[in-house]
C-alpha cells in the first residue's frame, strides 16, 4: 500500500458557516496504479489532492482522519518535514501548463533548482539529470531546450515539462489535478499515454483528479466518484463505468455525451440538479415568442457562406513579403439549411470561432460573401430587411461569466434586445415577456431582479439563452456554449437547446471542439483544420464512415467509451 486515506474530513470555515469540502473520504493507491478521482466542480476532488500535499488554501484544514503514506501518517506533519515529502516523495501536476511554469526562468533553471533541492546534486550533475528527465517525458533536443523559456513551448510540450518537474525529485506518488483539461484532444491523448507509461515503468502511484469521464475511461485502473465532498462509489473502471451502483454515478454517466450513437435527448440527470423545479413552459404557438416572423429565406438556406477569408497580421512590416499573416479562415464555404443544426468542429486554432464571429460581423472578413436569410448584411445596412435579417441572428458565447454585464439586472439583460429593436408594444409587455422567457429556460420569472453574479455557470448560460431568444431570432450561433460547464449541467443546457429548436424551428450553428457533443447535437457537420474545411457530411456518415484523414484522426483520438454501459435505445 502506497497511500491510504482513512476517514478524511476537510473543513473550510467561512463567515457564513463551515463548508465541509470533504467528508469521511477513504481511498487507497497501490504502486503502479492509476486511481481516477472523478466528480463535478465543487465535489471536493482537488481538495483531497491539496490535503495530501499539505497545501490546502487557507482557511481550509483537515479536521479528522489519517493520510498514511508509505506507512507514515503525514497529516499535520511539521512544515519542514512536509517540504521533504513534497517533490521528493509526492509530485503534483497542475491543470494549466500556461501558468504553472515561471515565465521568467528557463526550463533548465527551474529543473536544476528542483533537482538540486530534492537530490542534493551539484549543478553539473543536476543538469545531466534534467536532460534525462526531459528525454523521458518525450522532449527532443533536450540539451538545447534547457535554455528555452516556457513561452517558447506549445501547450502540450509545456505540460511535458511540468511532468518532468514533478518527476524531478523521483517521487513515488504523482497527483495530477486535471492534467489535460486545458489541452486539445490530440495532445490530451499523448499526455495521458505519457502519464500511464511513466506510472508503469517507474512503478508510480498516480491519482488523476478530473471531471472528464473520458479521461478516466482511458487511463485509470480504479475510480473513486466524488459528490458533495463524499466518495459515493469506488471500484475498478469497468465496474464503476459499466455497472454503476450509486444513483449519482448513474446520472453522471448518463450525462456524458456519447459518440457511438445519437440520442434524442440526454436521459434524466435530475439527481444532480437536485430539486430543480419543473419548467413552467409557455405555449409557443400562441405566445409572442412563437409569433413567426415573415422573414423567409428564398432558397431555404438560413446562412450561406462563400469563399470566406480572414487573416490576422502576426508581424507587421513595410515590405509585403516580410509580413507574417495567419490565415485564420481560408476559403471557407458552406450552407446551413433552415431548421437544421450545423456543427463546426475542430481543435483550438482551427478557425471555427472566427467563422462564427465573421457571420455576426464581430470581425470584418477580408473576402467572401455571407448571406443571412438570403441577404448580404453589408448591402444597404439601414434597410428594414437587413435589420430584420440581423435581428434574426443571435449568438450564445462560451464563457457565461464574462458574457453577461455584471452591473445589469437579469431583467435588463434579457429586455435589452427587445427594447433596442422595439419589438414590444411597451414596457409592460416587455417585462411580462422577460418573465415568460426566464420561466421557459427553466429559471423562473422571479430571478429577473437579481444580478448575474448570483447565478452558477449553467444558470448564467440559461440567461444568455433567454437574452438570445428575446429578439425572436431564427438562427442561433452557439460558440462552445457548454465547454465551461460540468457534464451534468452541459446535458441540461443541451437538452434545453434541443427543446427550443423543436418548438421554435430554430436554425443552429453549433461550434465545439468536443466530438461527442457535436454528435449529439448536429444534423450536419463541418470539420475544420488550419482555417479550412476538411469535409462536410451528415452526422451519421461522419461518425460511421469519415472520408477525410484528419476526421479519422480526430475520431481515433476520442476517449474510448466502450466501457460505459450501452446507451439506452
Amino acid at each position, binding site marked *: 500500500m502506497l497511500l491510504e486515506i482513512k476517514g478524511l474530513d476537510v473543513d473550510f470555515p467561512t463567515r457564513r458557516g463551515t463548508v465541509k469540502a470533504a467528508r469521511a473520504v477513504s481511498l487507497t493507491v497501490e504502486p503502479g496504479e492509476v486511481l481516477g478521482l472523478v466528480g463535478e466542480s465543487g465535489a471536493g476532488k482537488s481538495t483531497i489532492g491539496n490535503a495530501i*500535499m499539505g*497545501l490546502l488554501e487557507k482557511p481550509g484544514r483537515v479536521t479528522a482522519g489519517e493520510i498514511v503514506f508509505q506507512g507514515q501518517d503525514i497529516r499535520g506533519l511539521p512544515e519542514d518535514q*512536509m*517540504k*521533504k*515529502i*513534497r*517533490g*521528493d516523495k509526492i*509530485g*503534483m501536476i*497542475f*491543470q*494549466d501548463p500556461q*501558468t*504553472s*511554469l*515561471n*515565465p*521568467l*526562468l*528557463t526550463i533548465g533553471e527551474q529543473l536544476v*533548482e*528542483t533537482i538540486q*533541492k*530534492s537530490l542534493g546534486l551539484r549543478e553539473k550533475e543536476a543538469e545531466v539529470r534534467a536532460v534525462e528527465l526531459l528525454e523521458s517525458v518525450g522532449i527532443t533536443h533536450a540539451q538545447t531546450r534547457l535554455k528555452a*523559456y516556457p*513561452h*517558447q513551448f506549445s501547450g502540450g510540450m509545456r505540460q511535458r515539462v*511540468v511532468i518532468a*518537474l*514533478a518527476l*524531478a*525529485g523521483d517521487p513515488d506518488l504523482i497527483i495530477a489535478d486535471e492534467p489535460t483539461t486545458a489541452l486539445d484532444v490530440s495532445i490530451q491523448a499523448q499526455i495521458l499515454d505519457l502519464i500511464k507509461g511513466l506510472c508503469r515503468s517507474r512503478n508510480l502511484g498516480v491519482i488523476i483528479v478530473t471531471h472528464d469521464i473520458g479521461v478516466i475511461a482511458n487511463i485509470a485502473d480504479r475510480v473513486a466518484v466524488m459528490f458533495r465532498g463524499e466518495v459515493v462509489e469506488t471500484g475498478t473502471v469497468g465496474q464503476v463505468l459499466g455497472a454503476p451502483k450509486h444513483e449519482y454515478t448513474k446520472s453522471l454517466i448518463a450525462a456524458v455525451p456519447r459518440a457511438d450513437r445519437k440520442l434524442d435527448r440526454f436521459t434524466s440527470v435530475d439527481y444532480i440538479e437536485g430539486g430543480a423545479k419543473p419548467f413552467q413552459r409557455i405555449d409557443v404557438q400562441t405566445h409572442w415568442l412563437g409569433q413567426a416572423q415573415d422573414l423567409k429565406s428564398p432558397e431555404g438556406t438560413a446562412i450561406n457562406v462563400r469563399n470566406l477569408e480572414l487573416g490576422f497580421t502576426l508581424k507587421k512590416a513595410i515590405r509585403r513579403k516580410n509580413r507574417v499573416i495567419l490565415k485564420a479562415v481560408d476559403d471557407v464555404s458552406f450552407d446551413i439549411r433552415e431548421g437544421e443544426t450545423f456543427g463546426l468542429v475542430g481543435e483550438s486554432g482551427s478557425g471555427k470561432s472566427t467563422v462564427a464571429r465573421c457571420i455576426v460581423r464581430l470581425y470584418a472578413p477580408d473576402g467572401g460573401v455571407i448571406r443571412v436569410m438570403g441577404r448580404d448584411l453589408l448591402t444597404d445596412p439601414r434597410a428594414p430587411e437587413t435589420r430584420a435579417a440581423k435581428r434574426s441572428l443571435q449568438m450564445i458565447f462560451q464563457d457565461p461569466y464574462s458574457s453577461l454585464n455584471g452591473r445589469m439586472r437579469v431583467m435588463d439583460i434579457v429586455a435589452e434586445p427587445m427594447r433596442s429593436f422595439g419589438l414590444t408594444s411597451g414596457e409592460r409587455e416587455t417585462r411580462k415577456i422577460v418573465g415568460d422567457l426566464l420561466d421557459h429556460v427553466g429559471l423562473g420569472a422571479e430571478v429577473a431582479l437579481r444580478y448575474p453574479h448570483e447565478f452558477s455557470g449553467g444558470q448564467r448560460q440559461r440567461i444568455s439563452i433567454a437574452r438570445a431568444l428575446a429578439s425572436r431570432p431564427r438562427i442561433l450561433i452557439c460558440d462552445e456554449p457548454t465547454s465551461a460547464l460540468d457534464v451534468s449541467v452541459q446535458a441540461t443546457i443541451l437538452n434545453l437547446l434541443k427543446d427550443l429548436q423543436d418548438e421554435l424551428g430554430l436554425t443552429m450553428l453549433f461550434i465545439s471542439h468536443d466530438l461527442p457533443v457535436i454528435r449529439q447535437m448536429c444534423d450536419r457537420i463541418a470539420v475544420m483544420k488550419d482555417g479550412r474545411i476538411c469535409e462536410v457530411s451528415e452526422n451519421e456518415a461522419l461518425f460511421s464512415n469519415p472520408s477525410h484523414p484528419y476526421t479519422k484522426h480526430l475520431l481515433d483520438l476520442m476517449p474510448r467509451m466502450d466501457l460505459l454501459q450501452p446507451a439506452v435505445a
Partner: protein
Amino acid sequence: MFAFILRRLAQSILVMAVVSAIAFSLFNFVGDPVNNMVGQDATREDRVRIRQELGLDDPVLTQYVRFLGNAVQGEFGLSYRIKRPVDQLILERLPATLELVLVSAVIALVLGITAGVYTGIQRNSWFSRFILSSSLVGVSLPTFIIGIALIYIFAVYLRWLPSSGRGGVVDLGWWKTSFLTIDGWRAILLPALTLSLFQTTMILRLVRAEMLEVMQSDFIKFARARGLSERAINFGHALKNTLVPVITIIGINIGGLIAFSVITETVFQWPGTGLMFIQAVDFVDVPIMSAYLCFVALVFVIVNLVVDLMYFAIDPRIRIGAQ
C-alpha cells in the same frame, strides 16, 4: 531589438520636437523679450536695433529653426536676470539636484521594495498592518508639510541636522558633490527623505499588490508542491515576476523626482535646478524657463527609454518574442 530601439528613438525625437516648440513659444508669449532685456530708459531706436540684431523680426519658422539649432548644442541664451549663459547655470546646479534625486531614489527603492515584499508575504502580521497604515501618511501628506515637519523635529527641536543648504561641498572641477563630507551627508538626509517619502509608499503598495497577486499564481503553487524553500519561492520566483509593472512606475517616478524636486528644494533652500526654476518664474526669466522645460522633457524621455530596455533585460517573453 535594434528596430525596437530605433522606433523608440524616433518617438523620443518627436516628443522633444513638440516640447521644444512649446519652449520656444514661451519667448514670444511671455512678455516682450526686448523689454525684458533693456532698461526703462532705452530709446525706441535702440529697441529696433536690438530686435534686428537678435533676429526677432525674422519669420517665426526661421527663429524656431535657429532656436532648435542652438538648443541641440545646449545653447539657450543668456538669463535675463543673471546675464549668464543658461546652460552654464543649469550645469552648475544640476549636481545638487541629481545627488538629491539619487539618494532619495535609493531610499525609495530599498525601503519600498523590502517593505512591499515583507507586507506581501507576511500579509497578516501586526508589523505589516503597521507599515501599511503608516504608509498612508506618505501618500496623503503634501511634500512641503512633511519637509517642514522634518525640519521642525530634526533641525529645530533635536538640532541633529541642518535645515537648509548643501553643507560641505567638494569641487571635483566638473561636479560639486556633497557625498565626500560628513556635513554634506547630514545636509542631504532631510531633503532626500522628504522627496522619497511619497515614492516609497507608492512602490511599497505596488510591490505588495503585485506580490499578493503573484503568490496566488499557479507557478508559485507548483513551486510549493515541488517542496522548494520559502526563500527560493519568495525571491527566486515571486519577486522577479512583480518587477515588470513596478519598473514602469519607478521609471516614471524617477523622472518625476528630478522634474518636481521644486517643492523640496524650495523648502530646504537646496541650490538645485528646481529652486532655480522657481526663482526664474518669479522674475519671468524666460530663457531659464524654456531651457528647464526642455531639460525635464529630456529626462523623462531618457528614463522611459531606459525602462523599455529594462523590460528586455527582465522579461524573456518580450526579449525573445522580438527577435
